């Protein structure tokens, strides 16, 4: 199976763009698996935020998939197109990474 991921890329204050990646996957694999595959096989400059990989313990991998806020680590890939964007209500850091730390824990 192949997921077609349309991924928002860009820096704060710039226009940004969507890049498309075709990601092979097996039943049960997740959006985070897909993003990690892109970094290993296509483009290591893609910025994503996660810590615990797929235990859903760290709660760091929140992004928007097709307009809905989800955890990338528990959202399954589908055999079709998915649009991945950073959280809209948080300040952008880069690509899919937003500032989600409590205000008093920032540098």
């Amino acid at each position, binding site marked *: 199976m192949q997921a077609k991921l349309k991924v928002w890329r860009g*820096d704060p204050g710039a226009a940004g763009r969507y890049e498309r990646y075709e990601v092979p996957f*097996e*039943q*049960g*694999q*997740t959006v985070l698996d897909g993003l*990690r595959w892109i*970094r*290993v*096989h296509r483009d*290591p*400059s*893609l*910025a*994503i*935020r*996660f*810590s*615990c*990989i*797929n*235990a*859903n*313990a*760290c*709660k*760091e991998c929140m992004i928007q998939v097709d307009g809905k806020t989800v*955890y990338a*680590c*528990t959202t*399954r890939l589908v055999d079709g197109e998915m649009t991945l964007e950073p959280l809209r209500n948080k300040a952008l*850091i*880069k*690509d899919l*990474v937003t*500032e*989600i*730390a409590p205000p*008093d*824990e*920032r*540098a």
Partner: protein
Amino acid sequence: MYAAIAAARAGAKVLLVDRSLIGRGGATVMAQMTVAVAVGEEEPDHWEHHLADTLQAGRGLCDRALSQLLCEDGPECIREMDAWGIGWARRDGHLSQVHAPGHDRKRCVYVDFLNTGPAVSKTLRARVQRMPEIRRVGDLLVTDIALRDGVCVGAHAVHVSTGRAVPIAAKATVIATGGLTRLYARNSASINMGGDGYALALRAGAELIDMEFVQFFPIGHLAPRLVGMDPIMWDPFRYKLGGRLLNSSLKEFLPEEGRYTSARDLATYAILKEVEAGRGSPHGGAWLSFQHCGEAELRSAFGPVIDRLAANGIDLTRQNIEVAPIAHYHMGGIRADTDMRTSVPHLFAAGEAVGGANGANRLSGNAITEAVTFGRRAGARAAALAAKTAMPAVSATSGNGKRPDLNPAAAIVELQQVMNRDAGPLRTAAGLRRAIAHIESLQVELPAPREGLDAEWVDLHDLRNMRLVAECVTRAALARTESRGAHQRDDFPDSDAGWQRRQAIRLEGNTCKLS
């Protein structure tokens, strides 16, 4: 976080730095299981019994003083966290304690359901947030310890989101970065478990010990694909319900009779030997079966977890699942005394980053006990030293290495595969030499990050540390020509009394020197 709390309590001003979000990553938050501690609420107990079990599990290699600190201070830390509202499971008005493998009695406290580690993290995070003496800064990645005349004076860090170099001056510094399980393709780790603290300490001139002892958790989840759950989640199921470990002919191959009694190193070895003999499960592990348990029994033991399994398409009353050994914990680490001092003045270490307390094999439930007891001790001692130290100055520097022409994310995956295959739970001289050759071919310098979040630079940073720590593990494993605890050599299958000693590693120039 416990170190920060203890230091602040002792009057120090504390800076708590994390490369990601404070208290969300790391190993503790992933620990779903239990905490071993001789509080004696289920049945009479004493820390000396806990110590005896810890030393026994360590196969003759425990640093007795560190093991004693873990066992003796454990109860106080557990009660302190109880007062902070952690919510340890209770039964008939006392703390509920279960009997985990390797313990002589019911000793392990927990938070239901499979929530022990997250509850510890959350409780400490809430505590830290309430202490104005602790300044917390996330997304700050420490690249090296700052030294002056061989004394630790703080750290050099990079603000990950902007690429800015951040010098940190400190009167005393505590490394509490956890272990190295990310070195392995099959691991139960957070992304930040690439051995950062070991690499920092080694480059600062500190000594590492017992680096060959990587604990593989025998029954990590293998198949079918499971998301939203920790891969080591089957362990507490086995504590409560037993569960049968079966080979491809659906026969039990450990002398367990449905109970959960085998120590981790023995179970890991037995599963891999079944696989090697062609009796493994389809994905290369073993079957785990709870089909002898009724639905009501499963639900009473695991409540909502049963629904999370159902969401993954798993019904334990009708199917077996596949499990296999998975890198879980590292017994080795930075050499420290019972004041948590490393061999570098003003540099302390705490938790899994410290080697020695668990010898060649860690007893189930000792990891969080180690994290909190060592953290508390390190924080108190670092604060005492800081109180009589003048604030040093540290200037900003950032990497000036050449950016290598490779995909660092791919190089990390390749290194993980090499380590899993050649330096995993079953080792041979030939395999270890292959791994060392691969590691030597990876020469990584750290360049300055580009402006903004430079994801590739973060991978280069990780690759540089993982490579160094992998070299320590493989060289120590090659030198130890015996099998002991978590270190199993197929070419030296027996323990050798002459090897009842530890190996230390120091960096001389760019070379890891074993002694």
